[in-house]
């Protein structure tokens, strides 16, 4: 009787462990699938597809596993939708809606795991969107940007997305405020260099940004316009489109901006 009970208990334990493993696999499969769908939609700038994949991530939350990374992706999606809306000034409400949602989600993510550098990088990036609807809180925005950036740098000084965000914000900041293409180039170059060496710790960790880095460095070279910059820009764009052939960001936004700068 004693042995039967022991056998049953061990079997039950094995069952519980194996079930958890199965559940973990459910989670990994689900998040990988959602991530794939998300980046497929982002590549072709399909907002409906992005919203659909947002739903997938929300549903993954129901698994109650690693909610911090799921919330990160939800925040990232809201950031992306908010950022896309920024090109149209009449979309201020939309920018606010998605940026505020993203800030709340990234805070939830940080609350559970406070040592994930990418979460702070996203928080840093989100501060730029706040300019679109609450310039009143200028000092607050500047302070929050610096805080998030410093935290990210401390946690992971070699994260390419950190320098990508530095480069993009510097590119758009007027020269009189310490910005401009000239200053953005080394940041974006550093970012691209780091992307080349980057291997994410887990397959489902964020790996976005390289295509964006190519695009902004292409523009920054063109805008800096030092000797040889035009060729650098053109070569880089060719390389970028070869690596990301279906990128609507490169073929749409970057191409259009290049035309303007030529």
């Amino acid at each position: 009787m004693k042995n039967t009970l022991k056998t049953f208990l061990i079997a039950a334990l094995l069952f519980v462990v194996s079930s958890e493993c199965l559940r973990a696999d459910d989670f990994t499969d689900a998040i990988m699938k959602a991530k794939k769908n998300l980046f497929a939609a982002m590549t072709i700038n399909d907002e409906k597809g992005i919203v659909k994949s947002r739903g997938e991530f929300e549903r993954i939350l129901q698994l109650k596993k690693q909610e911090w990374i799921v919330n990160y992706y939800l925040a990232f999606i809201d950031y992306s939708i908010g950022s896309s809306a920024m090109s149209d000034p009449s979309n201020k409400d939309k920018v606010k809606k998605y940026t505020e949602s993203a800030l709340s989600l990234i805070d939830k993510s940080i609350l559970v795991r406070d040592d994930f550098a990418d979460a702070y990088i996203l928080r840093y990036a989100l501060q730029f969107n706040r300019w679109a609807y609450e310039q009143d809180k200028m000092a607050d925005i500047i302070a929050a940007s610096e805080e998030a950036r410093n935290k990210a740098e401390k946690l992971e000084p070699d994260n390419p997305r950190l320098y990508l965000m530095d480069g993009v914000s510097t590119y758009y900041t007027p020269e009189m405020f310490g910005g401009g293409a000239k200053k953005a180039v080394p940041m974006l170059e550093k970012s691209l260099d780091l992307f080349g060496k980057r291997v994410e710790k887990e397959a489902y960790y964020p790996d976005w940004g390289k295509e964006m880095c190519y695009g902004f460095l292409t523009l920054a070279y063109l805008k800096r316009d030092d000797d040889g910059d035009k060729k650098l820009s053109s070569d880089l764009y060719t390389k970028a489109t070869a690596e990301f052939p279906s990128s609507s960001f490169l073929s749409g936004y970057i191409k259009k901006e290049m035309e303007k700068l030529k």
Partner: protein
Amino acid sequence: MKIFILFIFLSLSVNLFGQSDSVKTSVVKGTVKNSKGKLVEGANVVIEGTIDGSTTDEKGFYEFETSKTGKRVIIFTAVDFGEKKINADIEPGSTLILDVTLSNTEFKTDEITVTASSFTSGENSKVTLSPLEITRIPGADADLYRAITTFPGSNQVDEGSRIAVRGGDPSEVLTFLDGASLYNPFLFGDDYNTSSYSTVNPWGMKGINFSSGGFSAKYGNVLSAVLDLQSYDLPQGRGMFAILGLANVGLSGVYRTNDGKFGATFSAGQFFIKPFLEVNKDNTDFSPIPTASNIGGTLVYKTSRTGLLKYYLNYSYDNMGIRNESPTYSGYYLGRTKNFFTNLKYSFAPTDISLLSTSVSLSTNNRTDKYGVLNTVSNSLYGKVRTDFGTPVSEKIDLSTGIEYEYNDAKENGKAPVYFYNMREEAPYFNLDFLQKTGRAGAYAELKYRLSDNFLIQGGVRSDYYTLTKDAVVDPRLSVVFRFTQHSFLKAATGIYHQFPALLYFLQGNTTSLKPEQAIHYILGYEYNRDNDFILRLETFYKDYSKLVSNSYNYYNYTSDGKGVAKGVDAFLKIRIKPKFNGWISYSYVDSKRTPYDGANTVSADFDITHTLSVVSEYNISDYFTVGATYKLSTGKPYTPVIGSIFDAAQNAYIPIYAERNSGRFPTYTRIDLNAQYIFALFGRFAVAFLALNNIMNTSNLYEYSYNFDYTQKKTINSSNFRTIYFGIGLQL
């Protein structure tokens, strides 16, 4: 082996059990709409505890297959909506249709946020006055209260920060901060011919609501207008900002811990106008030259997911002397004020949809006045405990309720002249040593009923009991808003309002028979508001005053027999053309009459300023360079002329004989102010330079009339606000 077999058995049995749950797949489908019946795209639908679900398409439609059957909870969410859970029984092989309506949560851009007579700024409202606008209004000197006076219905008192609203006295306006009553939030608030400045930092406020009438039952002990302020909760980051100006220096900062649980803010300012006077060649005879200090801040701690403990503190000090020549005495009028305010507030959500907050506040005000024989020290203390609770009671009805108790004492010590017309140092005087105290217990309940998406009714009642006079009052209040097109609203409000007379009247009059003053408001208005880019407001109001405190001119006699009426029209037009132009025009017509002390004919009230016009414009020359101009024009305020005098041999002074009260009027008031701001980088940091040119036409506006010793010659005392230049720089540290 046995274990392995058992394990296989267990796994199979579970799988079989699982499969018994999903012999046939079922379909769940339906639509998701918002409360206005509009289809919601991008809403997420999921069976709780699973990843089975779907996202709604552009038609708000969703559909998914699931093997999870039986009693299940289905969750519906969308970015700007509250979560909705529905219990459903999914039968194997069946199709379940669930059509769901989600309610908006945080982003209420489609909800009615308009109320009668109010100008609101806040995170979730249609902003009409933002901190940035406040700092950019020429002539407002980055002062919240002065900015408000560019809106209709309110007038500056002595070109400073104190406000008189719709023909009422400045004392009829009360400031609330995080639920606490904020008394005397001014520097130089009571000084002779010196404009007051507010101690409230607009950048520290997340919500600003100014209501010039018809306000909610949550506000007690206030007769005419309410400025309701909510300070920021947790700051977002860390940083400091410094300001160096011609008349002041300031430093402010914010801090937040990495875990986002604790935050702090501080601001400190020193006001010293000597360089300002020298640059502007101002020969006003000050001694001492006005100086002021202000320091304050908040400490915030997040105690739980919804719990927040917030501590607010502010201390201010001002000191000045200005020469004043009265018929019997020529010398410096010396005034000094110390003001302290502190508030501790705790709020949390007992349920997902309700909010409970409690605050405990304390404020003290110490005031010294010296002029000739007058030498008084006044101390007042206010303590208040307040609890508010708000919750929806149904999808359409929200309930707010609360209780409060406020304690107030006032002491007055020193010397005051026996005969007001003799201010000489050796004149006969009273020795003052008075103390008076009172308490007020209040409670309110209010329902906000959304009859439809376009029709909102808010009705409430409050009651207050005053311990000193043992008077109880009951104030019912009602307001309605009807939206008849997307941007057009009709608004109406009415209600009874009471305010207890200042304790000073009880002290000076040596009486306890004064009653709470009463006003009944009636307001009807129209507003067209197109996303805050184009606003047109027209409002008419009628205020019926009774039991007003009235006093005799010559003696400290007070009664509660005063009556009055204030009626008028406010008009407001605001146009914003992004990103270059922002401007507004406001006009008010007021007819405010009151019965004087002796109960004779009704006369103009002290702030019966018939016509007031303000034109404010700001133009962004570039993203970094903004210029602005403000033009103000108003009817001169009433005053009581002296028409003769009688010689009092005992005092060797003349006793003035007055005409009918407020039968004279000051000349028309007019002023044009300009300003400019330039944003740039300094030491790689954000910086802003600002320039203000006030009263650019150097108009001599009247402060008061004075008289020679026997009142045969009238002298004009002009306001000390003549043409000035002020500049400074702000730098992010």
